[in-house]
């Protein structure tokens, strides 16, 4: 099925209820006169209706995500209102909902998602720190910078992105061959420990990576590593970072290494996940770009970028969805 882009754009505006009079007329004419367009519409609108009816969301993905900002800041509307029902019947509705009967649009999900971090590097007060003791609320790691579009590279989202500069920190080079530039983020899980006390909590992390065009003889890759730690294992100084994270983590996960393509126009999405041990108290998210050892001694990364980093905790709960404050 190859739908012309203009048809798809028109269908989208119809489905979202934002078509103007001319588009409404075009749409109706199209469906009356073009059999292929009618079929394409039936496929498109069926997908749209399935999503709206909720049945397309699999039970394991059934989630009401916690927003980065508290939901109460935003206006919301509920699906079906009963202003016309007699008071007694309205009471019945409430009672039936409380009895956990099927209530398509406000039913408590089987799985909840908590947004732990949504980083797009847009915050003007955000800064990157060189490697030192880890602390929450700040990215630390090797030399890097927050930048706007440059050298033909535009951010994956918004106006800013993070650029890896060198595989060093504080002017100190790593041993020869250590051509991996990293940034770390420490996340305090303690406010949410109840959410994974059953051992079923999973953290999903995804980030977009990209690189400017680089010589044919060079190769760069990117990956994400995750480390679940207890409080005693959080590194308190730079020198312990590597050894502690590798040796003392309660659990560790790493995405496969993705090799950068040579197209700056396309961001490559890397994802990985880790099941949290019940005694985990902190999570370290480590983003790294690398070049192979045979690429020489220069630990310089002139054009490797990251953006749009998402960290979410998926937890199981029988309780109705509700918002949770984010950990600091």
């Amino acid at each position, binding site marked *: 099925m190859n739908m012309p882009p203009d048809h*798809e754009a028109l269908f989208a505006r119809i489905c979202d209820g934002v078509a103007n009079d001319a588009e409404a007329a075009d749409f109706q004419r199209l469906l009356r006169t073009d059999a292929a367009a009618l079929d394409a519409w039936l496929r498109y609108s069926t997908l749209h209706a399935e*999503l709206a009816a909720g049945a397309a969301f699999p039970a394991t993905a059934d989630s009401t*995500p916690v927003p980065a900002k508290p939901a109460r*800041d935003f206006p919301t509307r509920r*699906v079906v209102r009963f202003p016309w029902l007699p008071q007694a019947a309205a009471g019945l509705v409430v009672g039936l909902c409380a009895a956990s009967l099927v209530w*398509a649009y406000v039913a408590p999900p089987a799985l909840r998602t908590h947004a732990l971090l949504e980083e797009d590097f847009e915050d003007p007060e955000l800064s990157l720190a060189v490697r030192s003791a880890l602390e929450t609320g700040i990215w630390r790691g090797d030399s890097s910078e927050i930048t706007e579009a440059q050298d033909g590279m535009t951010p994956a989202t918004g106006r800013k992105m993070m650029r890896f500069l060198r595989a060093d920190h504080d002017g100190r080079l790593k041993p020869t061959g250590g051509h991996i530039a990293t940034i770390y983020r420490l996340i305090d899980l303690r406010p949410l420990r109840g959410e994974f006390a059953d051992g079923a909590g999973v953290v999903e992390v995804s980030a977009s990576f990209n690189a400017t065009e680089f010589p044919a003889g060079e190769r760069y890759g990117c990956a994400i590593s995750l480390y679940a730690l207890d409080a005693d294992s959080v590194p308190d100084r730079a020198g312990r970072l590597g050894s502690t994270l590798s040796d003392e983590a309660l659990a560790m996960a790493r995405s496969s290494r993705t090799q950068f393509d040579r197209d700056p126009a396309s961001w490559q999405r890397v994802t990985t996940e880790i099941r949290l041990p019940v005694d985990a108290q902190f999570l370290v998210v480590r983003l790294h770009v690398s070049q192979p050892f045979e690429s020489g001694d220069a630990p310089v990364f002139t054009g490797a970028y990251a953006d749009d980093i998402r960290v979410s905790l998926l937890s199981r709960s029988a309780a109705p969805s509700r918002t949770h404050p984010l950990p600091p």
Partner: protein
Amino acid sequence: MSSTLVDHHSDPNADDAAFLRRFMAEQRTLLHFIMRYVPSIADARDVLQETLVTLWAKRAEFDAAREFLPWACGIARFKVREFWRKQPRWETFARDDFMALLDQRREELSPELSLRTEKLRDCVAKLPPEHRATLDRYYREDEPVETLALREGRSVDAIYKTLQRLRRSLLECIERGLRAEGTAT
């Protein structure tokens, strides 16, 4: 000693509760049915609400021995026509022959559409969590696009484009799944 016979079916509260249970169990299906003819979610939900008003008013006429859904869909269909008649710019949709055309072609495509629905569930599950969250907020939480834009710090137009891109991505995923099974259109 005397005994008292209690006719539970005459208890209006019990009847009302039973009626609402049936409606709530079927409202997803009803919304899906309405969206065959009213694609805008907000409009479709308005029609669903109007349908419920009428169903509630007519609940005494409903024979519990009959199937609830066909009766409810009949009323929903009537409400759809009523809705379109109030929307002059959608005059084609208001015509019975156009509804019949949609129904006929949908029936012909029914096996394929069923397959697509099965694939869609897998494809939604494969989406990155943040994209799934956007769909979830828009479709299931009924969050207005303006709210999504505020929440994500983006323009309303950007949110509409994101929704369009996500639907396209799901369509492509479905196509890949069908091709893998040799059932692509």
